[in-house]
């Protein structure tokens, strides 16, 4: 196996990390692939924002570093990468075919109407979360569904089309959502809060928070702390968005009534 093929291992790891795989899976995959390609010793240090891999191969040490700038969840990609790495290590696919597939996976082409489908799924998700939050009023449930769809569409629009960074997108989406909720007629304060919460649920970093504690419990201290910081930042931005909306609402009301 040629040494430059080692880059395949780190690219697979990079794509796994970018698509939301666990740190342990990324480290294991890189390690298995590198050993299959002839590495005698593999040391991986993976964090959510970068990877450092050191390999000993043919009595030479190679060190590879990759910076990870964007992370999201794509479970289908994680599954495919998992399958590809396994088949590669079993000798079922050659390095060339793997490189080609990795190249395609690193540049995903969004399907037509994807944003609309995502917004719809987000709306229905918001409906589900509103139900478990105790919201039962049919009108309020309809508003919560609209909120869910709006928040996803806004996020996609801000990050994909206007290309602003994700933190600012979360802040703006949270502000817009809370302001929109103020406009809904026929709701009391409790239901209005629950409707708002249904949409905000999609912005809240519950999974990141849980993953950070799991990482800490597993001994991945650096990863756990960095994920915790990410979760706290998201929480701050969501709360800031709500506070901005609460601050501008009286002024907005005055302007609209004039």
């Amino acid at each position, binding site marked *: 196996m040629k040494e430059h093929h080692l880059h395949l291992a780190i690219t697979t790891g990079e794509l796994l990390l970018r*698509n*939301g*795989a*666990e740190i342990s*899976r990324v480290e294991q995959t890189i390690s298995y692939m590198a050993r299959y390609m002839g590495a005698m010793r593999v040391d991986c240090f993976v964090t959510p924002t970068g990877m450092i891999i050191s390999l000993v191969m043919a009595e030479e040490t190679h060190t590879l570093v990759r910076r990870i700038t964007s992370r999201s*969840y*794509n*479970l*289908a*990609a*994680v*599954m495919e990468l*998992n*399958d590809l790495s396994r088949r590669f290590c079993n000798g079922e696919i050659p390095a060339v075919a793997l490189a080609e597939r990795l190249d395609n996976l690193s540049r995903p082409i969004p399907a037509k109407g994807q944003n609309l*489908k*995502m917004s719809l*799924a*987000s709306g*229905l*998700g918001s*409906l*589900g*979360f*509103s*139900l*478990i*939050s105790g919201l039962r009023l049919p009108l309020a449930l309809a508003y919560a569904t609209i909120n869910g769809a709006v928040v*996803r569409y806004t996020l996609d629009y801000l990050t994909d089309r206007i290309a602003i960074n994700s933190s600012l997108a979360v802040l703006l989406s949270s502000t817009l959502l809370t302001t929109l909720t103020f406009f809904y007629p026929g709701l009391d304060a409790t239901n209005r809060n629950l409707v708002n*919460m249904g949409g*905000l*649920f*999609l912005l*809240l*970093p*519950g*999974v990141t*928070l*849980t993953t950070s*504690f*799991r990482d800490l*419990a597993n001994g991945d201290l650096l990863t756990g702390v960095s994920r915790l910081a990410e*979760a706290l930042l998201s*929480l*701050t931005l*969501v*709360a800031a968005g*709500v*506070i901005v909306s609460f601050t501008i609402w009286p002024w907005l009301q005055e302007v609209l009534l004039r």
Partner: protein
Amino acid sequence: MIDLQLLINFGGAALGAWCYGYLFGAPLKILIPGALAGGVAFACVYLCGEAIFWGTALGALGLGFIARLVAPRLRVPLTAVIVPGIIPIVPGVSAYNAFMAAVQGDYILGITGMINVVTYTMAIAMGLNGADLLYRVIPRWQRGRKQRT
């Protein structure tokens, strides 16, 4: 007699897990077990009532078991089932409420809320790791029992 509220909560949690799974790019074959796992996990929390910590731990344990049963059969990584299924029980809203209370000056409520969030998150970690542990221990125990008989 089946509790209607339990059914509504199960349905809501399953719907939420399904949609979140879809948003996370999960294929259809994972969405169904993911949604069921989410529904079961939240039903555990609901049935435990005020004992939210134990309910969350039990829900995470159930979710971990379902994921361990389903994932090898579908030939998918464990995370693919756990991520959608965990959504209904993660304390995102509790964290938000605690944070908002602290921001609005109610520090006692904020700190209490944050401690609750840490506790619930630890319960999830405990439940998932517990399922992992049991799944490794039970087959060994069964093998040992067969060898003895």
